[in-house]
């Protein structure tokens, strides 16, 4: 009887485990089925490299190059801001901060992760957008830079917690060895701990970037959503995610526009899949 119970529990857990893979598979199949249909209207090259996005015109122009560049620019900006701050914060928490400050900081960072993105977007719209406009003397503050700054806040919790974890799991004797050889604390951090934890830190950065590129609500509210190829980070951009979110309601099911939005979904899926795989590779490298 006990064995039977054991067996049932085991199988039930197995089904739970398989279910998630099954659902991912189904989602991907659906995405492919709906998205690839767009290529009966437009060649993949024209879709990916086209410079005009006018989905509801007759005939529609479905070039997503401005959207891809918009997403990449915002993500790049957010990475430049969040990586140094995030990694610095992780080093401070893991190595330098006294216990009490460490606990407060960790709680604060968890709180930052808990803020819904629409709230961050709203705060950005009211405070950051006018600030960017007046600091850089721009015609409008709805720019890629505003999006990058706001998204940096969103990427930071991921980067800090994963990087801190990586630094923490560097074997104690590395550090003790460095001290024994007469290295200062900073020398130990810079020359020993960081290289030893590097793969974990890269994974942290990748996961943070993955969070940024998939973010929708905040960027939709503060980047201006103009589908033009951005010439600087101080120009408005339209991201892949914001395009899907803003237009899905309108798209007539079965139209070219509808399929194109799913195809954008595939592009996003591929980008974040690549980022996650990279992060995974680095994480596993650390364990070997």
């Amino acid at each position: 009887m006990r064995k039977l119970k054991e067996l049932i529990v085991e199988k039930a857990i197995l089904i739970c485990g398989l279910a998630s893979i099954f659902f991912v598979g189904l989602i991907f199949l659906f995405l492919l089925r709906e998205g690839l249909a767009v290529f009966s209207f437009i060649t993949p090259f024209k879709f990916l490299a086209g410079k005009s996005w006018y989905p509801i015109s007759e005939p529609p122009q479905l070039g997503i190059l401005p959207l891809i560049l918009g997403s990449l620019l915002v993500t790049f900006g957010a990475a430049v801001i969040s990586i140094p701050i995030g990694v610095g914060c992780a080093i401070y928490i893991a190595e330098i901060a006294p216990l009490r400050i460490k606990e407060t900081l960790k709680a604060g960072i968890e709180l930052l992760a808990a803020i819904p993105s629409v709230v961050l977007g709203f705060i950005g719209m009211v405070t950051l957008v006018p600030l960017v406009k007046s600091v850089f003397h721009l015609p409008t503050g709805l720019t890629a830079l505003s999006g990058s700054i706001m998204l940096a806040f969103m990427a930071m919790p991921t980067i800090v917690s994963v990087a801190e974890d990586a630094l923490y799991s560097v074997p104690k004797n590395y550090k003790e060895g460095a001290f024994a050889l007469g290295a200062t604390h900073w020398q130990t951090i810079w020359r020993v701990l960081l290289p030893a934890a590097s793969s974990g830190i890269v994974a942290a950065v990748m996961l943070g970037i993955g969070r940024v590129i998939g973010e929708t609500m905040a960027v939709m509210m503060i980047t201006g959503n103009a589908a033009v190829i951005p010439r600087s980070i101080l120009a408005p951009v339209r991201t892949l995610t914001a395009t899907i979110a803003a237009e899905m309601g309108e798209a007539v099911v079965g139209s070219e526009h509808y399929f194109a939005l799913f195809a954008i979904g595939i592009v996003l899926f591929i980008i974040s899949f690549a980022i996650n795989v990279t992060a995974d590779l680095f994480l596993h490298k650390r364990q070997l």
Partner: protein
Amino acid sequence: MLRKIALFIVSITFAANAFAASGNNSIQVKGSDTMVNLGQAWAEKYMENNPGGFIAVTGGGSGTGLSSLISGTCDIAMSSRNIKEKEITLAQKKGINPEEIKVALDGLAVVVNPKNPVSKLTVDQLAGIFTGRIANWKELGGPDEKIVVLSREVNSGTHVYFKEHVLRKMDPNSKEEFSPAALMLSSSQAIADEVAGNIAAIGYYGMGYISAKQKPVAIAKDEKAPYVEPKISNVINGSYPVSRPLLLYTNGAPQGLVKKFIDFALSKEGQDIVLATDFVPITN
């Protein structure tokens, strides 16, 4: 055990029946963001007068409303543009016959920051601004500032209407598009806020959104025509060039609660609500 399951199934069936029955007394109204305040005002007043019927009104954009009507998830679609041929074909394929009812008129106001000296424009100039051919306020007698063009997202009936009537001037062969550099904002309120805070911005929305923080510009059909302010009286007498009908779409001729609700909207009381929400009643 078996009996328990049987009981459970029976009770679920009953619950489902009860739910379906209550469905007859409630309708879903969905669509144009321009009309959502109006729809809600109608629904509130109607439910106050006729307890027992429940009317839920949500926005999302004209396209969203029409596609819900087509997929059968709402009973009435609110739309600030006419239904497209494509949408009719699609609806008929799914066994739905969209029926159009005109319930009000709306003037589209073009607004700038109150500090901007420009206060009147022709339709041609507007087309130039919104397509990006005119890029600086200097060319229109304003300050030497780059024009920041604000538009609604493509799911907005206001966006489609503005493109067809101002940018393309009703010419079906015209290929004019909004400038790619135009900022796409997700609501009329977002446009109102940006115009209020940005001296170089220009945007458009339904007259109901005009406040003291924005300045509506007077518009002339062409250079010889008089400049007309976006006012209710000017929309009624037809002199304001950028006005449009507000429409409701139903599946087939309205029946039951849908019909009662639409009759209410067209009644004297309903049309007074139209006026109270800053739209223009249809003159019978």
